[in-house]
């Protein structure tokens, strides 16, 4: 088995279309003069591909912004809604991501898992005292943490499927089996891309560490949010293993996984917020 190269991944992502729902939403919203900026931002932030493609342009060395922009809302404040809107159109016209659907991985459920993790991660950050301004970074980290998997599913489906099957049959963590079958795991791919997109280092690092012991608050929030989304069966991204909270994590939050879910209002409440984010 040959390891897939970083360049193959980068080339694929460059030409990668966004998710069907957000492409349609962006096209509908931008063809109507009266659409609100709020709805356009929501359509973009509900899609990891759309989001990174816009942040990537703004953060590119080409424009040399002094502070790296890590959310669509902050980008809007700097360059204005019209430029954001036109960048979104340029992503939308690439086309629509062909939904990958097997019994072990489904694009729609992947999106739900990503948005659930995003919402929970942001909520945990705010619970820990992170300001509303910076908690948007935590949302983006959740939205992007499994980006590597959608790249695997779309670009290397056979090999990814072997990893999914083996993980499902043996109950082994999917990221370990990705290394076996693809030579790299989705967290490493996510980190590599986040660095390439020039997202803030702390955000990139949290993505890299989301299956490892976390080194800071950002990492803990993302780890916990991912496990909570899995526990609540809010979508799925193919990994059957729910990792227990390490002691450090329980001490940090002063609560375990179930307590935190309860605090956020329970699974049905979280699910309803996530459905709103997806636009169902």
């Amino acid at each position, binding site marked *: 088995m040959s390891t897939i190269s970083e360049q193959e991944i980068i080339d694929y992502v460059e030409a990668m279309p966004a998710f069907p729902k957000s492409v349609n939403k962006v096209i509908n919203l931008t063809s109507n003069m009266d659409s609100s900026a709020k709805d356009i*931002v929501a359509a973009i932030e509900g899609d990891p591909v759309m989001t990174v493609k816009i942040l990537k342009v703004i953060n590119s060395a*080409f424009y040399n912004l002094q502070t790296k922009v890590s959310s669509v809302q902050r980008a809007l*404040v700097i*360059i204005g809604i*019209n430029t954001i809107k036109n960048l979104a159109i*340029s992503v939308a016209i690439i086309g629509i991501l062909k939904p990958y659907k097997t019994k072990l991985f489904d694009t729609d459920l992947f999106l739900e898992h990503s948005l659930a993790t995003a919402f929970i991660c942001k909520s945990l950050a705010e619970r820990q005292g992170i300001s*509303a*301004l910076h908690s948007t970074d935590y949302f983006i980290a959740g939205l992007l943490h499994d980006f590597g998997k959608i790249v695997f599913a779309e670009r290397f489906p056979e090999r990814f499927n072997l990893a999914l099957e083996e993980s499902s049959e043996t109950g082994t963590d999917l990221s370990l089996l990705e290394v076996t079958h693809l030579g790299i795991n989705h967290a490493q791919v996510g980190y590599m891309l986040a660095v390439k997109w020039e997202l803030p280092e702390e955000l990139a690092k949290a993505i890299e560490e989301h299956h490892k012991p976390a080194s800071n608050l950002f990492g803990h929030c993302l780890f916990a949010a991912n496990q909570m989304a899995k526990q609540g069966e809010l979508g799925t991204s193919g990994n059957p293993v729910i990792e227990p909270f390490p002691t450090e994590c329980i001490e940090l939050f002063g609560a375990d996984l179930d307590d935190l879910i309860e605090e956020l209002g329970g699974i049905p409440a979280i699910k309803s917020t996530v459905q709103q984010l997806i636009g169902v």
Partner: protein
Amino acid sequence: MKFKFWGVRGSIPTPGPSTVKYGGNTTCIEVRTDNNDLIILDAGTGAHALAQDLLQYMPIKAHILITHTHWDHIQGLPFFTPIYIPGNSISIYGGRDMVTGQGIQRALDVQHQYSFFPIPVGHLKADVHYNDVNEGEKFNIADATVTPITLNHPVINFGYRIDCDGQSLFFTGDYEQQYNIYSPEDAEYIGFQEAIDERVDALINTIQGVDALIIDSSFTTEEYNQKKGWGHGSYDAAIELATRANVKQLFLTHHEPTRNDDQLDTIYADLLKRYPNLGFELHIAQERVQVSL
């Protein structure tokens, strides 16, 4: 340092008897350092009148800072006659467009295309240079230091601070302070407001204490409330910004095209009445008026 307004109108030229006092040309400001180095802020239709004035000084070296590429800020470029005269050196500065990925050169290239103008860009006889500017990245023009900052408008727009001879001025180009797109009951409201405040603080930091602030103030507050998101500011917002930034003089420009001289006079009188204790001089920008700092 001194500067002179050659165009103060927004959107479209408005010649005619009702705009004789303040002028009908679109944005163009001539800045001269004490050494007489020439910096031009935007090349709206006012650039044509400026060019006529400059013809007596050929050859010239001009540095044109473009805030953004909407027509009223670039339409004078093909009519800036020094670009057709050999021996002149014209440097054009501006931001890159994020959607097309193209630099400022495109503004001139497009205007000189066959369908829009008879002379192709290849026939420019002056030595024309293009320079892409970046947020916060200072650069020098002769003895002057220029600091660009991205400001909210429906296209990439840079405001420029110019420091020279111990004096300073800042021109916004077109600018609307971003309003909160969320309602107070939305979860995103506070975070978005913090992002706005952070950005406004960065602007205030950049313009702090300038001798002259020249700012887009197209609307009255009543008009602005109907035109949120159009990318332009109000008189009241301009005064608030100038107050917070402790500027010495404030020049209100980018006059709304339907506004006549009498209306601008009335607005000015009203502002002086409503703000009796401003800590700075307040002016309505007027074509061909020169200001020495």
